[in-house]
């Protein structure tokens, strides 16, 4: 079992514009107790944001053979926050052949996260 330092983390919930002030208590067994939330989403947000923060990364890649053609992409799911720049590095130098359709996989398992990068726009 992972041991961790017991502490309180103050957060503002960003799941909706209400912005509840959360207090996340991290227990020694690396579990967390969330207070201050007004809905279950807040509890989940507080726990994840402190124990295992994740983000969806959005960017774009070039269309091969064009000077200014790009197509937007995203990680198909959340990836660990610490992997954001690794994901961006993986996108460097990538260009794709048109046509591209929404959902087309651009990079599989980006930065070893188990998550694919997919196109979020069509390019004909």
């Amino acid at each position, binding site marked *: 079992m992972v041991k961790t330092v017991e502490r309180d983390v103050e957060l503002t919930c960003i799941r909706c514009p209400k912005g509840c002030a959360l207090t996340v208590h991290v227990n020694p067994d690396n579990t967390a107790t969330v207070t201050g939330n007004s809905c279950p989403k807040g509890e989940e947000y507080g726990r994840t944001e402190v124990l295992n923060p994740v983000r969806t990364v959005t*960017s*774009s890649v070039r269309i091969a053979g064009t*000077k*200014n053609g*790009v197509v937007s992409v995203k990680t198909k799911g959340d990836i660990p926050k610490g992997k954001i*720049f690794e994901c*961006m*590095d993986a*996108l460097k*130098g990538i260009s794709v052949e048109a046509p591209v359709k929404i959902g087309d996989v651009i990079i599989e398992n980006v930065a070893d996260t188990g998550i694919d990068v997919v196109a979020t726009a069509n390019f004909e």
Partner: protein
Amino acid sequence: MSRYDVVIVGAGVTGCAIARELARGQRNIAVLEKNADICEGTSKANSGIVHAGYDAKEGTLKAKLNVRGNEMMEELSKKLDFPFRRNGSLVLCFNEEDLPKLEVLKDRGEKNGVKGIRILTPAEVWEMEPNITKDLAGALFAPTGGIVCPFGMTEAFAENASVNGVDFYFEKEVTSIEKTADGFKVICWNEIYETKAVINAAGVFADEIHNMVSDKKLKIVPRRGQYNLLDKKCGDFVDKTIFQLPSKLGKGILVTPTVHGNLLVGPTAEDLDDKTDTDTTAEGMSKVFKEAALSAPDINKKMVITSFSGLRAHFDESGPGDFLIEELDKAPGFFDVAGIESPGLSAAPAIGQYVAEMVNRRFPVPDRIGFVESRKGIPNMANASDEERESLIKQNPLFANVICRCEFVTEGEIVEAIDRPVGARTLDGIKRRTRAGMGRCQSGFCQPKVLEILERELNTDRGNVCKSGSGSEVLKGFTKEDSL
């Protein structure tokens, strides 16, 4: 090395007006401009006023050329197709005891040959201009006063000069001038232009050009004027150009409609050392409004769409206090056209003729055969009727593609601005020629599209397209090219 009969230094309104007039003769003419476009110095940032001609002392060149320029303006604006409106001007007098000063102005105007000027009572002024202050003693009315598009006039001169054979060179800074056996070598860093005659129309830098060939040194002190430009929603706040009688508070701030329907207030008058300092300052911008409020208290400051400043080419105290337009005794063939501050824009057409006469006397040449007198400007979709729009779109479908929403400027107009003689090469060049980016959003929406059109028409990469000259590239590389 290039060889010319005449080299004109400076492609402002004066240089371009002179170029056009000189092109009436069979001679080779070059215009050297240190910026990337015409109209980049004093000519681009001023009040856009065609003065009636009562300001300058009788007998001066300023007086003579102002009145003549004013008289020429209407016909010229039709012939060369640039925006001009004879809206009339008022000089406001706020105190009874200053009323005699209006009489002095009126007398001077009459001696200068200004037609139709008269003194109005406050009631007459308010009938003409309801937004004028109630603290008014009287005003001088000059019906011949007008407003002009300074860019439009400069472009018209330049284009027409070019059509008549004048060569324009940009980003050519004159670094020295050497006398030769039969003229001059004008040197721009490593390039040499040999010429029989040099015309110094270098605006705020005219002293430096003059001092390259003369021991009788000149000094120009750049006099900065800051302006606020207001939204077209307040374009009809006043109809006439409203001046203030010069008083203890200074020369006064003017309030005027522009020929494009905006409202303009300014300028300040600050003598500087730096000839490139066209910064605006918080003090300057608030001073402009504070003093403009003396004329018209209800100007809506919230309607400002941009602020800008320009530099006037003002001689220091040792200078002539008038336009300096003459051939140098010690350097025959070198003509100064220096100290062209207000009313330089009004006088420009007359300066062109005056200088051409001087040059013709010294270097007579036969008339150019087939001189083209007139020129048609870029079509203007914003002001066109539905029928005119329809016909323009039929000729060229690009006129249906609106690029600048604020000013209703289409791709057709922008492409013309680039493809014409002395065409636009920069964002600012497009803006001055077509008004794209001149409106209330100040190019937020249209800038990427204008960049794309410049890229295509100039067959370059948009990364090389500049706002004004080199060093002002709009974009800085590609995404993902730097290490994170």
